[in-house]
């Protein structure tokens, strides 16, 4: 099953339950009291999920390692390499 099929399948199943509750196919005391909430629940869910995703992304952006030591170490190694290569007869082309 492709990922697209999985998503259609799950969305379809959830949608069917939602519709069944709304149209009172499944008798339920909760539905009568919270009809509005149920009606808008898909939108509420999507908005909450969006906020959750946004928070995760921002958190990960701010905690993304900057690797300053790795960059400094690389600079040192570049100098070391140049000296050693020249010693072994490597000619660095000027440009």
């Amino acid at each position, binding site marked *: 099953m492709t990922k697209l099929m999985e998503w259609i399948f799950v969305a379809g199943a959830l949608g069917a339950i939602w519709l069944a509750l709304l149209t009172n196919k499944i008798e339920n005391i909760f539905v009568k009291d919270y009809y509005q909430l149920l009606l808008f629940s898909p939108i509420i869910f999507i908005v909450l999920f969006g906020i959750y*995703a946004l928070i995760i992304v921002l958190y990960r952006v701010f905690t993304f*390692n900057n690797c*300053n030591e*790795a*960059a400094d170490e*690389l600079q040192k190694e570049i100098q070391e*390499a140049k000296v050693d*290569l020249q010693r072994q007869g490597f000619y660095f082309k000027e440009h």
Partner: protein
Amino acid sequence: MASVDKYSILLPTYNEIDNLPIIIWLIIKNMNASGFSYEIIIIDDGSPDGTLEAAQQLQKIYGEDKIVLKPREKKLGLGSAYIHGIKHATGNFIIIMDADLSHHPKFIKEFIETQKSHNYDIVTGTRYKGTGGVHGWDFKRKLISRGANLLTQILLRPGVSDLTGSFRLYKKDILEDLIKSCVSKGYVFQMEMIVRARQKNYTIGEVPITFVDRVYGESKLGGSEIVQFATALLYLFATT
């Protein structure tokens, strides 16, 4: 070391004259220290800046058993450069990495050890986990990268944290099989490779890597990256 394994390191280059000597020096230094058997295959695509001449000099210094040159006449793209390199590889493992110093050869040892510890089919470097990270990226680039990564994780659930990275170790036969089943070109090719690998139930290990943005030379990938990425994501979403 009683290991009979040999590692063929593929280095595709296009206009990397400043980076090539340094990356070769670093690979030789780190691989000799680790004691594993290896060769470096340089696939230069007719770089006008003289990368091939630099490669020939390096071959004289380090020997033809360590440095293998498999140049091509003109720029034919990264994916086909890998295929070209694999054809000439004598190792049973292939390591692919960029020649622009973004990928540090010190991690190769960890890749190999991780592979051996679980007999993984693939080991991939990850910038998004543990001690991994990036240097030289501004807020916007980090935001796009993290956003695209989360979207991919939600839609594809690939079980791998870094899909677009190109610092990886593969068992040779598995890399050959994967390349055959991939249709993408350009850098999204890396993403398709790892997603298809999951689909085929190959085992994948991860090693956190630090990614330092290129110091010398120009980036070869243009502004159409986001479009390419979105297309590839939708394609993989519908087909895997």
